[in-house]
């Protein structure tokens, strides 16, 4: 009992510490937001200003931005802790590592996924997305980005010690992102056309639940493996 209470306290500590480190500099907290805004301005520039085309590709754009925002911070996720020895200290705590590591994933999601969810209405506005699709976009992001963070974390843990296996595993992991993207974008499109989206959302939710619960085990195994 007391151990589980401790686990939660520890979990919160890891989370808050990670956020503190990330927010060390005032500007850093804003950066992901600005970055997203900029990615979204890039596309209209590249594609041309026709609002109809923009609206059609908007879900794709925003989801690519989500992917990118996830990937950008990802290789740092465990790397810094690994290099400076904090990660081995986490392994030496008397709480289960798999659980502790989810705090780091949560921090990553709070810094990369959540801003995206919050900002999505603005992005949708900029890209002329039909009103009906706004909430669908926000929902898919809310349901999908945790899975992005969790899957990404597996990759980050696996590539920690940079042995031969790394490439193969990223090759295996990256395609896992694609189902997320397909279901999410089709949900947004359907919503834009006034069609039902429960199906896709349910699948997204299922993927997220599955990955968020199972990924920690894989992560913990990978991290312990890299301690050799």
């Amino acid at each position, binding site marked *: 009992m007391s151990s589980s209470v401790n686990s939660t306290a520890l979990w919160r500590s890891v989370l808050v510490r990670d956020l503190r480190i990330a927010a060390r500099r005032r*500007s850093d907290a*804003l*950066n992901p937001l*600005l970055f997203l805004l900029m990615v979204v*301005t890039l596309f*209209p*520039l590249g594609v041309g*200003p026709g609002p109809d085309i923009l609206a059609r590709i908007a879900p794709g754009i925003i989801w690519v931005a989500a992917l990118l925002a996830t990937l950008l911070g990802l290789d740092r996720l465990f790397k810094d802790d690994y290099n400076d020895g904090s990660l081995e200290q986490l392994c030496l705590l008397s709480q289960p590592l798999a659980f502790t590591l989810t705090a780091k994933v949560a921090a990553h999601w709070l810094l990369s996924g959540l801003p995206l969810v919050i900002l999505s209405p603005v992005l949708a506005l900029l890209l002329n997305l039909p009103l009906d699709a706004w909430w669908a976009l926000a929902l898919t992001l809310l349901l999908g980005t945790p899975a992005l963070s969790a899957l990404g974390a597996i990759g980050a843990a696996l590539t920690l010690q940079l042995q031969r296996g790394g490439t193969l595993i990223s090759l295996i992991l990256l395609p896992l992102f694609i189902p997320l993207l397909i279901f999410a974008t089709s949900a947004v499109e359907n919503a834009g056309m006034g069609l039902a989206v429960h199906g896709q959302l349910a699948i997204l939710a299922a993927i997220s639940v599955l990955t968020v619960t199972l990924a920690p085990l894989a992560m913990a195994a990978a991290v312990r493996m890299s301690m050799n």
Partner: protein
Amino acid sequence: MWRWLHPYAKPEATYRLVDRLLPWFAALTIISLAVGMIWGLAFAPADYQQGDSYRIIYIHVPSAIFSMGAYFGMAVMGAIALIWQIKTAEWSIPAIAPVGAAMTAIALFTGAIWGKPMWGTWWVWDARLTSELILLFLYVGVMALYYAFDDQRTGAKAAAILAMVGVVNLPIIHYSVEWWNTLHQGATITKFERPSIATSMLWPLLISLLGFMLLTATLVMMRFKNELLRHELHRPWAQKVLGTAQEAD
């Protein structure tokens, strides 16, 4: 040739100079802005095509021009800071950037507001509009970089380098309007062409231009004073200026 700059490399002397000039700039700003705005809003004739909506021009155009002007000034300061290693020039960068960003923001939303009655939409992904948005990003980048460093001198140098690199973008941004226009689609942009403006409209515009120039300078000077103090906070003269010196002993 740069000899005259030398005394102003000293923060205290610079502070005194700026402090002395500031009231004059502020007064002139208020006068010229008042004249320009009242003339432009109330006395200049209405446009035969755009009616009275064109009066937005008296803030839109000056702010747009000085959003670029301020950036150029910042880049020049960056060059001075890097080449002659003058600290006060470094510190002027964080003073200029927010003011420039404000000018950019003003140009952006006055343009957007003007666009609604003229084009029927707030925002188009047109070259000029987008390039102004990019200018805002550049400013934000410079500020973010400056504040990202613990060591302020390093931050200032980094921001100076970025400001200088970014200035290459100014002409590119400026002329990309034409390139984009001719190469892309020109439908929404025809109204953008400079109206052959009547002198009765031109005069107030020129005065507002002067007013915005002075305004930019005034705001920069206000912030610059703060920057000088911030970096010299541990020195007695700064403490004296701030009125905290007595507590020291």
